[in-house]
């Protein structure tokens, strides 16, 4: 009795599987972009193994950072194709997981929706810890430390600091190869001021990359929020709420 039920179930499953029209080579793709890559592209290949053409009803990515492209709207029986998912890395780090939901006109509801997953392991060039140090208004101007470590994908051997601000003193100490400690000290903390310190590396040789670290003497508590509306890109922000001009710069 039990074996009969088993055989029956298996045959039903096999029938359902056979009717499946769009077969995906992989529904999860792992990408390893290199340091400096702006995008990571995943090619999700499919084939129509059914008897009827398949229409794509919708292809939607989980975020605006991933754009998708289907080469065709209709896939005839036997035809192969791919859905290309282009993930804009931007300033993201670590492992990023993004999904693309594909809807087709497959009569079997479970087959009609497919979730494609893109996993990108974004290599970190420099590990900067922390990326922001601050002193509160009136606090004693003690030096604060930031540790910088180059990852194995980013063999930088030298680090220099560039700062246009007179208000912060900084020095770099190197430890083991690829490891540095930056010490920042504000000249005084009597008024709010801030800047970005530019960390210049020597890698890659053709176009050495630089990174930012933010330092700030913050507004005293109870200060009104910045009056200037923020700009999405381009011009540096300047504080208009308090008298002395800030050193904020690109």
């Amino acid at each position: 009795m039990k074996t009969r039920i088993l055989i029956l179930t298996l045959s039903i499953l096999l029938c359902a599987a056979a009717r499946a029209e769009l077969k995906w080579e992989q529904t999860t793709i792992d990408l390893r972009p290199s340091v400096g890559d702006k995008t990571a592209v995943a090619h999700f290949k499919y084939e129509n193994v059914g008897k009827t053409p398949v229409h794509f009803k919708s292809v939607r990515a989980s975020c605006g950072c991933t754009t998708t492209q289907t080469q065709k709207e209709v896939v005839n029986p036997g035809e192969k194709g791919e859905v290309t998912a282009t993930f804009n890395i931007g300033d993201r780090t670590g492992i990023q997981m993004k999904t693309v939901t594909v809807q087709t006109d497959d009569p079997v509801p479970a087959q009609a929706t497919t979730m494609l997953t893109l996993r990108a392991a974004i290599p970190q060039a420099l590990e900067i810890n922390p990326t922001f140090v601050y002193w509160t208004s009136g606090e004693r101007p003690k030096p604060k430390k930031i540790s910088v470590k180059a990852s194995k994908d980013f063999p930088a051997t030298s680090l220099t600091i560039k700062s246009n601000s007179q208000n912060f003193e900084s020095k770099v100490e190197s430890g083991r190869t690829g490891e540095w400690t930056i010490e920042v000290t504000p000249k005084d903390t009597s008024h709010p001021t801030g800047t970005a310190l530019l960390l210049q590396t020597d890698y890659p040789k053709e176009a050495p990359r630089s990174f930012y670290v933010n330092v700030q003497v913050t507004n005293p508590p109870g200060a009104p929020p910045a009056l200037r509306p923020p700009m999405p890109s381009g011009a540096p922000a300047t504080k208009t709420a308090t008298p002395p001009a800030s050193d904020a710069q690109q």
Partner: protein
Amino acid sequence: MKIFWRILDVLVGGIFIYAGALKALDPVQFANMIDNYKTLPWFVGVRLAFYLPWLEIVCGLTVIFQFLYRGGLSILTALIAVFIGATVAAEMRGLDITCGCFGHASQHWSFPQHMVFDLAILIALVLLWSRPKLLHQRQAIHLHNDKKD
């Protein structure tokens, strides 16, 4: 010769108890490490983070105190296989994250260091599996007793 096997028991069991205890002390941190792989949904990962360490501790104890020995050994072998898999997967995917398998102690280990340690444990477990007479004798006695019921 028997002392050799007992020492191995205590060593292997001890390592798993230590690893399990470290993780059981901060299950949320372990859950975050599992989540870093982005392979399991948080819902699953967080429950696994609470469960796995205790499995390690319990099985480590069975190996040291020799009760439910074969069961404990099987599970620990399965676990070390999982740890090796996780370490290799992380390396292949270029992840700069730590396996989290041995808590803070292993946080600064490189891939080769991880692999050496994991493989050493695997070898120890395999050795324990092939442990002569003593275990087989016990099995024979128990099987004999089972048959009597």
